[in-house]
């Protein structure tokens, strides 16, 4: 069957190398993505259903879901606002040092997350610069969920900026101008013209940031402190179980993170596909 598709493709396609490139890609995907996933599922198969349910509904694990979801949601929302603003500034204005700021946006991708984690923890602990300033006001950041959200926001901001930026660049300035010539106030033009246009990219970017935050480990553990039931995130739970050689338990919790992330990515993709179809002339 596959051979048939490949040979037919070979006859019809103008672009060369379809069979070879698709083959290499699929092999790569299998080795890097599917193989580890399969072994994860393999670990799960050593558990009975009741054992599995017991592991994933353990009160301490349940508490970690709550902390992770809350912090990731706050981080994602913060990034949605700040990332949109950042993309706007980078696309619509010219200022000295713009290239530098643009490059800085990728720093969270390039920096080892553990380095970011250590830096943030030092900065926001009660003896650090920021923590020292905030502590007298009664605001604790390190070792609370706020600190976790902060670390998550730091590592995932590029997702929003880098998805919104190209879409904004594509939007001709004429469209903004059209709204203004029609008498629209700035707020109205932003809500009715700009935001709907950027909406798919913004939701995708925010969704990606959220999913990334759900699984964040390196940047978070130092600032989180890991107090059970309070600042213990799910990825830390997995790590703890691994250290205790509880591979099955670790896999069970990991499967929840994996399933949640995959579901979210799928939903984002489907929803975005529908929206884009409308922009390109398909019936809504």
């Amino acid at each position, binding site marked *: 069957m596959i051979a048939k598709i490949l040979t037919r493709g070979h006859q019809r396609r103008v672009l060369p190398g379809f069979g070879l490139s698709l083959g290499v890609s699929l092999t790569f995907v299998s080795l890097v993505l599917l193989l580890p996933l399969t072994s994860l599922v393999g670990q799960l198969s050593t558990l009975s259903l009741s054992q599995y349910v017991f592991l994933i509904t353990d009160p301490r694990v349940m508490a970690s879901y709550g902390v992770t979801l809350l912090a990731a949601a706050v981080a994602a929302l913060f990034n949605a606002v700040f990332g949109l603003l950042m993309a706007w500034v980078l696309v619509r204005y010219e200022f000295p040092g713009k290239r530098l700021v643009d490059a800085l946006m990728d720093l969270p991708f390039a920096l080892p997350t553990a380095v970011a984690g250590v830096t943030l923890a030092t900065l926001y602990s009660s003896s650090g610069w920021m923590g020292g300033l905030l502590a007298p006001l009664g605001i604790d950041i390190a070792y609370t969920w706020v600190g976790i959200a902060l670390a998550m926001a730091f590592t995932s901001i590029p997702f929003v900026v880098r998805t919104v930026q190209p879409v904004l660049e594509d939007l001709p300035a004429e469209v903004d101008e059209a709204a203004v010539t029609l008498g629209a106030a700035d707020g109205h033009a932003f809500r009715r013209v700009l935001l709907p246009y950027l909406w798919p990219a913004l939701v995708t970017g925010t969704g990606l940031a959220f999913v990334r935050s759900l699984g964040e480990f390196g940047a978070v553990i130092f600032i989180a402190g890991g107090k059970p039931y309070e600042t213990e995130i799910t990825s830390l739970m997995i790590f703890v179980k691994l250290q205790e050689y509880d591979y099955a338990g670790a896999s069970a919790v990991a499967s929840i993170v994996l399933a949640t992330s995959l579901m979210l990515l799928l939903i984002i993709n489907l929803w975005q596909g529908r929206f884009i179809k409308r922009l390109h*002339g398909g019936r809504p």
Partner: protein
Amino acid sequence: MNIRIAGVDKRYGRARALEPIDLDIQDGELIGLLGPSGSGKTTLLRIVAGLEQADSGSIHFGERDVTQVHVRDRRIGFVFQHYALFRHMSVFDNVAFGLNALPRRERPSSDQIRSRVMQLLEMVRLTDFASRYPAQLSGGQQQRVSLARALALKPDVLLLDEPFGALDAKVRQELRRWLRHLHGELGFTSLFVTHDQEEALELSDRVVVMSDGRVEQIATPDTLYRRPSNRFVFEFLGEVNRLEGDVARGVLTCGDARLSVPGIDDGRHELLLRPHEIRLSDQPSHGAHLPVSVSAVVPVGAEVRLELEADWLGEPWQASVGHAEFDRLDIRRGRRLYAVVSQIHRFDASRPQTLMLEPAI
């Protein structure tokens, strides 16, 4: 509403985009800004719209000084070359945008908005497309939506930036007639930018010809074509044939060509003429001995365009003849004929001059 533009100029850094310009537009006039790209016509239009600020000078709409007034308060309609429709909104919502954007106190009720939008869509003949999205429409339809959108707020002034530039020839022709019609019906004052001379001549009450940020001439299409004020205008407005030679005692000679040009002083001169000012004959006339041979024959609809070559010509002449003439003279490639010139123009004197030579038949 009349528009008065006084001493408006604009620089971008060190480059001068507009020399100081004065222009008075009467109420209800349709004015074309015509010029090659980079001539400053779009800059002028955008300054009138308020999308750009002039460095100095003033703009009045009627008695109102709008020089410092923000675009959204100028009460203009603006039509963009690439439509600039809101792609995520239906045609209906696009047209209703300006009405919905009004502050709550002035905003009509949603029923009134609906009937106003449907009336506009009827005017642009797109009633059936109200719920479609821009991407589902052809270019011509999108531009009509854009026009309806610009007219929704009953602007005093309608400004169009190369409105038909992105459309194909037939649609362009259709939309031009339709705009002319609409303009007559609604009577708004209108200013449009084009680089297409035919469009400017067909559509405008008056044309402003621009080049290099300067106004070259402001005149009615007829005057512009018949009495261009300088060589740039003459050359930009249509195809031009050149004839260069020495004039002695009222006769121009150039190789074995002779043309009597009474009234032109002796010396070397360059004379210009339009394709339609050339007639062909199988024998030289009294005043002209201009032997040519036909080097290309291109039938274009109602007329036949010819390319004429001769040893005495630097570059070939373009001429056009009707089909009857074409058949009578048995014109084909390589045929030797004589050109007869009915009118000739010169711009090398202190003021432009048009010479009537021989009446067309």
